[in-house]
């Protein structure tokens, strides 16, 4: 009934003591701000992981070796590795549901040169399945094939960025490109060009010109460059066919391969879908968010106590006003509502400022985390947590009611005679 008047009155009071109002709100601002920061960072990171993993393919299954749990030594011997024979067996056995097997080997970085022109590159030895597992889009020529791998050919697939830098508008297919490493120079024939995704922050490049893109060469060729040929693999990717239940397949793959590890005391095979990873990451992020959120909630309580304190001061300062209002016929409930509304307004303004602060900090924080973690690996996504904002607004109002009630009730119960006499 007096709501509008009470709101106007509360604003007039806040205006009269801006500094005090701000200091009172600070606790709420910091509390709500930190909650929103954490929640928005959490949801942004989740969204980033989700888009990144989805891009990599939710049908991807990571297969690898992990300690079997009963052992205490984690040395991996050559004999422990998953051999090519095992992988081929598995491919045959699950041919109906396997799209591809992707094994890759990153052997560091180098510089591609053509005359005086250069392009920075990360060198990856891959199998044909890499195209599927990492969603590589070939725009010219072809990708690395199984035959390339088998024969360890000196062929390469380069990015459109590198092709443009090195060869300009010339068709690079069939041309030779030199790869300079610290101690060696290798020559490859370009067989394909893929589209480089300018995702995220574009890696560590100090300028666009120095951007390092991937150069794909056959897996076996990468081993020759390294001068070391492994007897097997500690991990690789499998891509499930569309429509196949990736999680079920992962379980079956693990148990199939684990037949080879029955007698291995140290290692066993795991198979994990991207989806399962995503769930794990989400659970982890939710856990962190919950914990930090709980800490932030404590600052909200502290802020609420600050509001209560200032409201008690306000009630004391305005004892005469309260007495006058009562003499003019204000019921106790009217006085109570007046002070509760004032407390709510303080908390609500604090809450809104906190939300703005939290969104700002959350955006900065999540981009920093993504940059630190991913270097272009993670897609940057900022997600404004609408639910959290609504909850925060509701919660700050609730704080106002909760911490405003005691002072307001004190005001309402003042004896009008005493209050009028108060100096």
């Amino acid at each position: 009934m007096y709501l509008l008047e009470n709101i106007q009155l509360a604003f007039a009071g806040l205006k009269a003591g801006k500094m005090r109002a701000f200091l009172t709100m600070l606790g709420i601002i910091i509390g709500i701000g930190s909650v929103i920061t954490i929640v928005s960072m959490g949801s942004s990171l989740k969204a980033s992981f989700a888009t990144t993993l989805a891009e990599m393919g939710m049908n991807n299954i990571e297969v690898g070796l992990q300690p079997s749990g009963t052992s205490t030594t984690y040395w991996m011997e050559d004999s422990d590795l998953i051999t090519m024979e095992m992988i081929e067996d598995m491919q045959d056995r699950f041919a109906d549901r396997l799209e591809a097997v992707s094994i890759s080997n990153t052997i560091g970085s180098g510089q591609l040169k053509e005359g005086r022109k250069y392009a920075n590159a990360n060198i990856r030895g891959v199998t044909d399945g890499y195209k599927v597992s990492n969603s590589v889009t070939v725009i010219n020529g072809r990708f690395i094939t199984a035959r390339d791998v088998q024969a360890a050919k000196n062929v390469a697939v380069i990015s459109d960025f590198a092709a443009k830098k090195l060869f300009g508008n010339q068709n690079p297919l069939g041309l030779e490109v030199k790869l300079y490493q610290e101690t060696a120079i290798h020559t490859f024939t370009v067989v394909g060009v893929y589209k480089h995704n300018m995702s995220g922050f574009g890696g560590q490049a100090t300028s666009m010109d120095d951007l390092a893109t991937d150069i794909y060469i056959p897996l076996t060729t990468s081993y020759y460059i390294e001068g070391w040929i492994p007897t097997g693999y500690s991990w690789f990717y499998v891509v499930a066919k569309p429509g196949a239940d990736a999680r079920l397949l992962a379980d079956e793959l693990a148990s199939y391969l684990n037949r080879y590890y029955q007698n291995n005391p140290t290692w066993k095979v795991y198979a994990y879908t991207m989806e399962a990873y995503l769930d794990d990451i989400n659970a982890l992020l939710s856990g962190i968010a919950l914990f930090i959120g709980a800490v932030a909630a404590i600052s909200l309580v502290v802020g609420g106590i600050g509001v209560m304190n200032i409201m008690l001061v306000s009630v004391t300062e305005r004892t005469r006003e309260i007495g006058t209002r009562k003499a003019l016929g204000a019921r106790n409930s009217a006085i109570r509502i007046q002070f509760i509304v004032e407390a709510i307004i303080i908390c609500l303004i604090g809450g809104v400022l906190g939300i703005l602060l939290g969104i700002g900090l959350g955006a900065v924080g999540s981009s920093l985390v993504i940059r630190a973690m991913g270097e272009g690996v993670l897609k940057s996504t900022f997600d404004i947590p609408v639910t959290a904002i609504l909850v925060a607004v509701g919660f700050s109002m609730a704080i106002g009611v909760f911490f405003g009630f005691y002072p307001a009730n004190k005001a309402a119960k003042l004896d009008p005679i005493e209050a009028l006499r108060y100096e």
Partner: protein
Amino acid sequence: MANKIIEMKNVVKKYYIGTPNELTILKGISMDVYEGEFLSIVGASGSGKSTLMNIIGVLDRPTEGTYLLSGENVAGMSENALSDLRNRRIGFVFQTFNLIPRTTALKNVELPMLYAGYSRRERTHRAMELLEMVGMGDRVKHLPNELSGGQKQRVAIARAMANNPDILLADEPTGALDTQTGRMVMDIFHKLNREQGKTIILITHNPELAAETHRILTLRDGQFVGESRSGDDAKEFMPLWEQEEGGCGTCTY
């Protein structure tokens, strides 16, 4: 015969009841006030004036005795009922004005109507009228700290009149004002009494102001010790014991 606005019989007010410091402030006050009267209650400090005013204004309840305000017995009324009674039947005018700070003159006058539940339009309309009436029509948007003492008191009178109360209860309304502005305030009371027939109770220790009223009740040590009428010499009060029973029970107007 005019209506009785106030009917008080043997009102006693005690404090610290049941303790060794029990204090009896009012020792059996009886008084009747009729509609349209302009009455003053005088007495030195400590005589019980304020306590009596609080009881008349239903800010406080008598320990013993009965008090009927416009025929309603205030004893046993709930706090909310007393609030409503103050809101509609009593108009307080204080010595220190007690305007709500940071609130315009207009909003101050609207306040009692707000508590009475009038619509915004009705409130503003009536508040403007009242401020015009006390000659403050050109300062409605001013805040209390932008007004002089006399102006504040005029706003306070307008506020007291907001819900057209049965009684204006003025406690030393000129106490904080200089003679000239005090005169202006008294003139407003006279005008309200004369033109609108407003019942006014003036509580003061100033015999000169009291002499302007129709009837003067003198309070000493919690009892009425005298009563005089308009036209009587203000300094010669009729002794209470000449009354048959209590205050001015036989007064007619």
